[in-house]
């Protein structure tokens, strides 16, 4: 699939757009350019999207230079201009491409849908910005759920057998909150970093379960269950939220490293404490320790 493609009836002065051999990237470009006669130069990104491939370097200077040569692009067009997706920039050095091939690189908008406007009026500030709207966050939910599918089923089954419906529902709620509710609520959760946003969400969804334990019985074991539930849910949702950083469009490596060092010890301590208190009180009441 990498190679040079014709869109419409391009001639020797038609623009050349560069894309990745990732179906959605290529299709988005093709549908945005429905009324344009152009060439599309598809780089071999091993089926990965432009931005991720640029980060890895497969959508990169070397691949672009090689592809220009392999497709004999100079024999198809008289001009020496390429239009690249802006998100290809982390992998491509425009001045290096110019020096090695004679082609000057122009970065188009972030989203292919903005190309018609870009071609007629140039780039606006807005076209250059990556956002993370609800729609983009929502499409990640199935991916997130698939990543934790095994854990959800296993935790639900084990807890259902050991403790009945309520503990099983607690596990299910925690994972759904982290994998589905968190992406939706990301911008409205207070605080600035992913983990603390997740911990807040975990605390919020643990309230009904804590109240259930506190109101459906008396004795200190109910308080232990309630406390353990809150600790565990905060830890699980916080951890899932931290793991969402890679899916976001704005987390930096320095920021994420900072979060890992700042929160992992706390999350681990909360999980261990929550689990230990519950296990000890369950075992204790069964074995008659207390």
């Amino acid at each position, binding site marked *: 699939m990498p190679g040079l493609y014709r869109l419409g009836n391009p001639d020797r002065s038609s623009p050349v757009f560069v894309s990745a051999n*990732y179906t959605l990237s290529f299709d988005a470009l093709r549908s945005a350019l429905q009324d344009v006669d152009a060439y599309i130069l598809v780089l071999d990104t*091993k*089926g*990965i*999207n432009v931005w*991720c*491939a*640029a*980060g*890895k370097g497969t959508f990169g200077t070397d691949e672009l230079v090689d592809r220009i040569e392999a497709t004999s692009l100079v024999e198809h067009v008289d001009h020496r201009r390429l239009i690249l997706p*802006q*998100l290809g*920039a*982390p*992998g*491509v*050095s*425009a*001045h290096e491409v110019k020096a090695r091939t004679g082609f000057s690189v122009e*970065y188009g908008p*972030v989203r292919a849908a903005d190309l018609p406007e870009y071609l007629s009026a140039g*780039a606006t*500030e807005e076209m*250059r*910005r*990556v956002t993370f709207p609800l729609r983009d966050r929502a499409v990640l939910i199935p991916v997130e759920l698939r*990543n934790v599918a095994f854990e959800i089923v296993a935790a639900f089954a084990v807890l259902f057998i050991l403790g009945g419906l309520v503990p099983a529902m607690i596990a299910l709620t925690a994972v759904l909150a982290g994998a589905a509710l968190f992406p939706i609520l990301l911008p409205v959760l207070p605080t600035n970093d*992913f983990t603390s946003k997740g911990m807040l969400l975990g605390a919020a969804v643990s309230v009904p379960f804590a109240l259930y334990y506190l109101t459906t019985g008396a004795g200190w074991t109910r308080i232990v269950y309630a406390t353990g539930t809150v600790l565990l849910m905060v830890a699980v949702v916080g951890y899932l939220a*931290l*793991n969402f*950083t*890679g*899916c*976001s*469009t*704005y*987390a*930096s*490596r*320095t*920021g*994420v*490293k900072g*979060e*890992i060092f700042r929160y992992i010890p706390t999350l681990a301590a909360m999980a261990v404490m929550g689990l230990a208190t519950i296990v000890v009180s369950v075992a204790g009441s069964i074995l008659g320790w207390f």
Partner: protein
Amino acid sequence: MIDMPMIATGQESANKINTLRFFPGRCVRCGRCWEVCPHGVFAPSEKKARMAAPERCMECGACQRNCPAGAISVDAGVGCASAMIKAALTGSKEVTCGPECCR
């Protein structure tokens, strides 16, 4: 990653929350940094570019790679906790954005 040796000048502007550094003394006003940055960190200007919002930098490395004057330095990488944790646990090199993730 950096093509030219970086010379720290008195004008260097760094920031405390990420690895982005800008050396205005080297800026040639080409506007590439504004063109490639997905978060509007750099503002184009009549004189030199300026870091308008360094705190928004996600360290993708696009500006550094496309600055023809070597006026920008950033330790580029992917902000993915799951990859970093996996790498730390298995002692392997960080792997991100493979076929099983981030397509």
